[in-house]
């Protein structure tokens, strides 16, 4: 059985004359431990696809199956639980809450998972040590550099030990060196057995992955293994 499968996925936004078909009949199978890049030009549907995989939105039609469970028929509360337990999400804008400390930002998914205080403290310490942010836990996002913010964002995404790690243009707001460092973190996560899916329009980043899914006008144009 495949770890993650998308069957005939379509996603439509708007109605009538304003209707836009963002995804058209997408079929993908993803195995455990893959490192995948989804590429394509702006507006080709790659972020929409990532949001469906991450349980952030539901397809208009088709089936999304995750380890045998049909996620596409989940309600909002079930999706929230699915995201919390299985998905780590990193976005270009970091998605950190500005008036919360780095500690509180990283602790947020753990709180929603119902963890106790001592468990939260322990896990946040592990993650901040790993991301080299131990001395920044009481800082606010505005007091950190872009790279540090993205590392904090990764730490939060990893807080609940997700099965799949999704990154939407994760280096878009970072300089080249910082971007490389972030990508190295993704690679090491993948080497640890985690499935990592990166949405990017940067072909250099895509070349570092094992598989590349190229999208065009809401369809899969190419899907090939790189290594």
């Amino acid at each position, binding site marked *: 059985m495949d770890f993650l499968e998308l069957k005939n996925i379509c996603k439509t936004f708007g109605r009538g004359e304003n209707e836009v078909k963002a995804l058209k009949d997408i079929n993908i199978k993803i195995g455990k431990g893959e490192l995948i890049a989804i590429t394509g030009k702006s507006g080709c549907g790659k972020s929409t696809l990532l949001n469906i995989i991450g349980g952030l939105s539901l397809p208009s039609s088709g089936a999304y199956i995750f380890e045998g469970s049909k996620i596409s028929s989940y309600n909002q509360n079930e999706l929230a639980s699915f995201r919390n337990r299985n998905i780590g999400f990193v976005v270009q804008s970091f998605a950190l809450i500005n008036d919360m400390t780095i500690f509180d930002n990283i602790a947020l*998914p753990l709180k929603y998972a119902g963890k106790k205080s001592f468990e939260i403290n322990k896990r946040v310490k592990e993650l901040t040590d790993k991301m080299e942010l131990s001395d920044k836990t009481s800082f606010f996002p505005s007091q950190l550099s872009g790279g540090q913010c993205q590392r904090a964002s990764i730490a939060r995404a990893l807080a609940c030990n997700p099965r799949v790690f999704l990154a939407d243009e994760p280096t878009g707001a970072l300089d080249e060196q910082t971007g490389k460092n972030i990508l190295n973190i993704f690679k090491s996560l993948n080497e640890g057995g985690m499935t990592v899916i990166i949405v990017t329009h940067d072909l250099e980043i895509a070349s570092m992955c094992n598989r590349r899914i190229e999208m065009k006008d809401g369809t899969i144009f190419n899907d090939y293994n790189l290594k």
Partner: protein
Amino acid sequence: MKIGIVWNGIIRMYKKHKWLAFLLIVQCFVCTLLINMIFGTILKTHSSVSKFSRFIGSKSYYWVNDDPDDNIGFSRYMKNQNGEYKKLKDFYECLKREQSWKFLSVDRQFINIHSAGIPDKFLFQYEQGCPIESEDKSKKDVKCLHVSKNVFSEFGVTVSEGREFQNEDFHYDNGEYIPIILGHEYKDIFSLGQILDGEYLSETFKFKVIGFLPELTEIPVSGNTGTILCDRYIVMPAFSFNDNSEISFFDKASLDHYVSGVIISDLNFADVEERINRYILETGARKYSVNPEGSNVIKSLTSVSESELSRLIYIFIILTIFTIASISITVNGFIRENYYEYGVHLLSGATPRFLVKQIIGFITLIMSISFAISSIVGMFLISNLAPLVSLIFSVVVALLSSVFPINVVKKVDVNNLIRRQ
């Protein structure tokens, strides 16, 4: 832990928008207080109606007054030409003796009290905007009501302190004190048993405070289509005078006032008028008229309260809609401002239900604070029912004003939320 997140979210929302939240609390407090005032007025009107219903039942109610334009008749009476005083006194006795009605002598006057410490609000005609002020600042012309024996029992008037008038209070002998009962607002100025010097109808008397009326005591008064609120009035007995002495100015002036009063009867207006005119003819007294205005006090009070009530209900509806709309719009604004943050929460595993709880919690916090303040203030200023009225109003407003923001939250799209940054 999850309750903790919701609570932290509410507090953060409050801190982030503390001025708007503060203004919302003030607005809700003012609206709740106004609702309490409206309710208090409705309750007061209702209690006035039910009180008069209890004491008067379905009887009709007429005013007896002299003709204010009959200057010649009045002048002749005051000069006691042709025994006018005796004629009026006989007419007064006829009014009191008539079996088919009850005659209550009750009319407004003023007493000149020798006390500089009385505030202006107690002055005669203060509410009309033209208070009578004495040249001597140490004396004050204050509002007073004289009442016959049966006024207290007929209208269910009681005292909150001291005692009511007794039979002996309605007969005055030289050198005695005239017992007076003071309206509620006099409590801060005079005390029980205090003796006051003053003049009534140009005669000097000593007045003794024997009681205080409860707050909001109302008495129907001759010439008035409704009742008067007695909180700023001195109530004195319509006392009798010494028949054997020479007829004084005071005797004539007081009798003239005592004949003005209220008739409560089962008879219709035509019958009452016919009997009044017959007594005038029989006694030869000068012209007095009976007025049909407000001939049924219940009808009069009810019609006043009904028009007042419908006005108050309109104000109540407008205020409630205004409060609900303000909260809904403001909270909706908060939600839109916090879209990105909600997106992060949803991304981290929050359910839309968490956001709904946070919105309900925030509105509940606003309404709870305004409820607490308005309950305390309302209890002191309006009525003991203020906490109950405030609670009902707060719960209704909180529930209705949550509907719109909750619908907005339920429709949020996480994907869009994150991209809005």
